[in-house]
């Protein structure tokens, strides 16, 4: 079968796909030719798959919560299983579209460059459905994914070469190209049926805005309510029974994912922790009695609540820690993480146009990560030069 896929063969246009599938199914047979004769068992495939595994709790809870919010909205009781199935059916098309568009482009690009298909999109493909509001039309998701994969990744050279996080570029594209679909009442709670399941009419008291959306538009002391108008507390936000993008609502599911990433050592704990520290510090600062003000309603939020709401935790755990777009030096990682946390809250509180600051904060710091690293490395270079100069003097 193989020769057909090699240059000159009938199916040579599919060589990259064939290689990709072969290395996916079988461990590459190649043995080392130069240099070290033995190699560690870990490769990028395993690394990426582990990230996908870490995303599964957030994915499953996200599906469940879509069902929870839906049946609340149409005022019908439903079993947990029904809710989950509804959510599954609602998310499945998004996942399929994300992978089909992204992988399709990757396959074509790999074939054009005669390279093996790389696994970078495995993670991006699952991140996109988790951060895009569930009511986003599929064609928009497709366009945004295509834009992000081509212009944020392939033009830079593919996996490992991108400057900006590809999933976040997808969301940013949607956010700026189709703002009306990305916020407000209608974006985050799916009220119509999912592939024929769970049809019904929406109850009168329904309001689908996310807690942060409510805070941003509130006048006076902000009160956050669920979609039926009941006030929500810290634990609703911690467990995730609130409207929002599928992956981001449950702090608990995200923390399980964080534990997987930290135990396996894939994510940098330096980045992850410093994002939380930076966010908490900034949230506490704006919450100080003389700084909080009704002009900026988000400043009235309790700091812990700030971290549980919106995409903060999801961004801190899964997006900021992307090693390709983040800072790579140890010192740089602390600075990078801290600033993401600080900027996310800063944007949230003082820019009422953007109730959610995490996406922009991470993209901003993606742009600055190389500069941070450059400064850290330059410091090392200067230190070396100084110690060399000192020695010359001694001698």
């Amino acid at each position, binding site marked *: 079968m193989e020769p057909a896929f090699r240059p000159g063969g009938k199916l040579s246009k599919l060589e990259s796909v064939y290689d990709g599938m072969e290395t996916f199914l*079988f461990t590459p047979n*190649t043995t080392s030719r130069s*240099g*070290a004769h033995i*190699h560690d068992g870990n490769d990028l495939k395993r690394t990426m798959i582990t990230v996908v595994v870490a995303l599964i709790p957030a994915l499953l809870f996200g599906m469940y919560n879509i069902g929870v919010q839906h049946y609340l909205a149409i005022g019908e009781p439903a079993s947990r299983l029904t809710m989950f199935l509804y959510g599954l059916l609602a998310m499945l098309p998004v996942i399929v579209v994300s992978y089909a568009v992204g992988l399709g482009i990757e396959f074509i690009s790999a074939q054009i460059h005669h390279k093996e298909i790389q696994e970078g999109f495995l993670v991006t493909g699952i991140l996109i459905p988790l951060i895009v509001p569930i009511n986003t039309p599929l064609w928009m998701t497709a366009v945004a994914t295509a834009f992000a994969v081509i212009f944020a990744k392939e033009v830079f050279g593919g*996996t490992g070469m991108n400057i900006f996080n590809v999933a976040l570029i997808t969301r940013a594209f949607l956010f700026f190209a189709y703002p009306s679909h990305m916020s407000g009442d209608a974006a985050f709670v799916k009220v119509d049926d999912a592939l024929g399941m769970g049809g019904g009419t929406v109850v009168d008291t329904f309001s689908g805005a996310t807690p942060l959306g409510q805070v941003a538009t509130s006048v006076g002391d902000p009160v956050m309510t669920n979609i039926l108008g009941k006030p929500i507390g810290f634990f609703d936000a911690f467990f995730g029974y609130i409207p929002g993008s599928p992956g981001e609502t449950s702090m608990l599911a995200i923390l399980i994912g964080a534990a997987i990433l930290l135990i396996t050592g894939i994510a940098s704990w330096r980045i992850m922790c410093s994002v939380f520290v930076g966010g908490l510090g900034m949230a506490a600062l704006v919450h100080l009695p003389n700084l909080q003000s009704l002009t900026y309603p988000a400043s009235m939020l309790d700091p812990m609540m700030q971290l549980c709401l919106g995409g903060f935790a999801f961004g801190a755990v899964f997006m900021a820690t992307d090693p390709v777009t983040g800072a790579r030096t*140890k010192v740089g990682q602390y600075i990078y993480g801290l600033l993401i946390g600080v900027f996310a809250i800063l944007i949230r509180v003082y820019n009422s146009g953007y109730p959610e600051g995490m996406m922009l904060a991470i993209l901003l710091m993606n742009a600055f990560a190389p500069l941070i690293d450059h400064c850290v490395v330059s410091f090392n270079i200067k230190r*070396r030069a100084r110690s060399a100069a000192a020695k010359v003097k001694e001698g």
Partner: protein
Amino acid sequence: MSTVRLKKGFDINLLGAIEGADVAFTAPPRSIAVVPDDFHGIIPRMEKKEGEHVIAGEPLYHDKNYEDIKVVAPVSGTLKEVRRGERRHIDAIIITPEGNDSMTLDLKRPVEEVLLASGLWVMLRQRPYDIVPAPGVRPRDVFVTAFDSSPLAPDLDVVLGNKREYIGKGVEVLSGLTDGKVYIGIRKGQSIDAPGAEINTFVGPHPAGNAGVQAANLVPVNKGETVWTLDIVTLARIGELFTTGKVSHNTIVAVDGEQVKTPRYVQTVMGAELTTLLKGQLKEDAGESRIISGNVLTGSKVEADQWLRAPYRHVTIIPENSNPDEFMGWASMSPKRFSLYRTFTSWLRGLKRPVSMDSRIKGGERAIVRTGEYDAMLPMGIYGEFLIKAIISGDIDKMEQLGIYEVAPEDFALAEFADTSKLELQRIVREGLDRLRAEMS
């Protein structure tokens, strides 16, 4: 005398280690070869022709640029063949041993001249560039490592054999060639008697035994400086030369690895053919083997009908490909699939117990994605990842600034093992060093 503690690095514990320190004897080899690739930086110009008789210690070839740098015959006999590869590159110079005569050098000549003519000069390495040192340059310091920390490495105390008594003389000789000091790096529990040298103890995993790593942690090499590195066995050989006037080409070699029946030390000659060395030692029915002259990280792949390569002290034999059709290996939950990283489960059973490892790369080559992998394997105060990137992009200034003068390919060998992106780091570093050298001359 101080103790340096190194935290970075890792000791890979492979199956097939040698127990005890007994040295076995084998039949004398029927052929001996010198492989010019072992002496990086030297462009060979033959002095002997095929069919000519050579005496042990007599020059076979010299360097094109420095005619005084000689590479000598390890045994007496007939020069059987100068085997050439592509573009007339000399692959090996093969000698059929015959007779026992050997050259005696006139020790009244200047020390450097004797060393160059003896053939021991090419066993030295200089930093920068990790090449055979250029004559006429006085090194700032000399760094001697007294132990080999690489996987399944021979105990250099065993390899020293009866040459131990010459260490003191060796230090004396090298002290005369440098304005600085002769540093000897030992491991904990080792004792070396060498007045005149500064002896430091290194505690920590591989690559603590690399002379370059030891240098970087004592007195780093800066631009414009030159240091020499060598191992304690070469030091003893130099001492012996300046005591007896003769170079000993006998050597003790560790033959070990998973595919070896009884891992052991064997007494033989530099450049000995592997056929006699390994006779009856390979496990039968154990699948295809890879024979490595050297250790699994930096050694050279050799065929069973080839020869022992410099530094002539280690042969490791591992399985070539123990699982050719492994299905979805990346999804493996088996704790037997060894990985330093906790993405696999091998850490649950402990990474210190002996493991089987074959020569598969176990993944495709990728751009550098994960952070800090190289730095964790490189105890040198160097930003390894940034240095590698600077080399790949050919940025000479950056390479210099990031400390390329301090490193040798062997220092990156462990990082190459650990690299998730499966880049050929040793090749990259070697190309960077060669490029820099070409640029500077």
